[in-house]
């Protein structure tokens, strides 16, 4: 589960684009894309941690951080 859930690409920069180009774009590829059918007996969070993570299983956990204030 240590693989990245984010993919990166670099869009073509046109010579007449009016705004300063965003050189790096990202998109999410969360865990459900890589688990066609959940296997039994996966390790679990305790109930408290599961609540705050939004899932009982670490293998299903997909973090996301706000982009607010983080643009280059």
């Amino acid at each position, binding site marked *: 589960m240590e693989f990245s859930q984010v993919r990166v690409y670099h869009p073509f920069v046109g010579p007449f684009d009016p705004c300063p180009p965003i050189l790096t774009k990202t998109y999410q590829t969360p865990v459900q894309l890589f*688990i066609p059918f959940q296997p039994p007996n996966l390790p679990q969070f305790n109930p408290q941690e599961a609540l705050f993570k939004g899932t009982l299983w670490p293998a*299903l956990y997909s973090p996301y951080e706000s982009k607010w204030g983080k643009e280059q």
Partner: protein
Amino acid sequence: MWVYEKKLQYPVRVSKCDPHMAKLLLEQYGGADGELAAALRYLNQRYTIPDKVIGLLNDIGTEEFAHLEMIATMVYKLTKDATLEQLKAAGLDPHYVNHDRALFYQNAAGDPWTATYIQAKGDPIADLYEDIAAEEKARATYQWLIDMTDDVDLQDSLKFLREREVVHSLRFREAVEILKDDRGTKKFF
């Protein structure tokens, strides 16, 4: 029937008076990929889906109502004590002249909710693919909502809701696998 439970599924904390964020959150209240559309989509499809996956649609549909209540709680907390000036500055003055501070099933742009947001094709695979797509679109909407606020408490509740979309998407994908399998044998990939 349903029996109401007098608690939220997840604690909702909002630490900043930000009525403009309430306007944006309406996307998940009465929008095309919002929680109302989700609940009604699954609970309606369950009547005509194979027996093996009725339970899943029933239960995810029920959980969506808990999420609808969480979104409503956010909107309510963000607007209940906002002054008229704050509502106007947030672009909620058209909302105010029609609804005061009442919630309304509409999206962030003010379009009222419509049944055309949800599909029911009667074909189990078509319906489940629609459900998977709906979960991914709701997940994306939560990402963009998380991007639009610096309130970490609000972000926390929205991250919970985003993660639920991930889990629901996985369960619907499993439902497709169950329907593909004609011998009742389980396959773990």
